[in-house]
């Protein structure tokens, strides 16, 4: 029972951290208007609403591949942030994206991203992107590695402290 409570608390904390990451972010992440559907150590699932600005054509029938790449990169960042408690800083080392089919839909886009291996200095990430439409067609798959710095002054603690001080 106690273990279940601890897990629930941990999940709540991760969800709180993920929402902070999302709401405190600026720049591209604001434009993408992401909704967090799952925030856990073993992966994150985010929803991006359809946006005609991200399309390849004025008729808005096809998403440009680049936005899916950006979505994957963002989701990898959040996945690492949640999976690695003492991460102080991180930077994408490299990113590979496969465009599996044309992104031809106005449905919301869902991304699942995970950090499936972490070492002292490096993370290994993979992710999938699909449309929230019947058949859930997978439109892209991505892989990345990040260079990370671990330390006492973790990103999560800094963000939680900032949040507390802004409340008072």
């Amino acid at each position: 029972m106690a273990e279940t409570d601890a897990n629930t608390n941990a999940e709540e904390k991760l969800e709180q951290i993920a929402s902070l990451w999302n709401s405190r972010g600026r720049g591209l992440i604001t434009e993408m208007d992401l909704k967090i559907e799952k925030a856990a150590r073993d992966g994150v699932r985010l929803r991006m609403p359809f946006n005609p600005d991200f399309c390849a054509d004025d008729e808005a029938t096809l998403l440009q591949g680049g936005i899916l790449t950006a979505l994957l990169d963002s989701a990898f960042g959040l996945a690492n942030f949640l999976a690695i408690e003492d991460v102080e800083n991180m930077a994408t080392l490299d990113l590979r994206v496969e465009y599996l089919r044309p992104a031809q839909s106005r449905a919301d886009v869902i991304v699942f991203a995970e950090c499936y291996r972490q070492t002292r200095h490096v993370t290994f990430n993979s992710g999938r992107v699909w449309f929230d439409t019947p058949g859930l067609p997978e439109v892209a798959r991505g892989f990345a590695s990040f260079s990370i710095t671990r330390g006492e002054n973790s990103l999560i603690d800094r963000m939680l402290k900032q949040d507390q001080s802004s409340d008072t």
Partner: protein
Amino acid sequence: MTLEELQAQCDRVPFFRFLDFDITSADDESVVASMVQSERHIGNPAIGAFHGGITASFMEAIASVTVSRNWDILLPKPINLTSDYLRPALAGTLFTRASISRKGRRMASIETVAWQADPEKPVARGLFHFLLV
């Protein structure tokens, strides 16, 4: 195709307008463009750096323009990409040169390099494959 015609073609693509770049030169081997940072390009709020996805998208856009110009295909189909991040891309202007590595009948392989103040210190390199049929 003149630079103005190339730019006009780019300006018809909503996501390219979102990125907001200028084509500065184009020949049979390569295309060069510049993109001034706006708030929506930012990924890392702490240092105000370009989002890695935006850097990759910009390189992909210029790779795609290179294909358009040389094969006369308006929207070449991207197959995959690899982006190698070498240095942080900080506030200011980002430049990209996209060059043709292989010009096939069905496939094109394009390599890109992105830099800021010093072309000798690239911030990213990219490899992009497009399907031409």
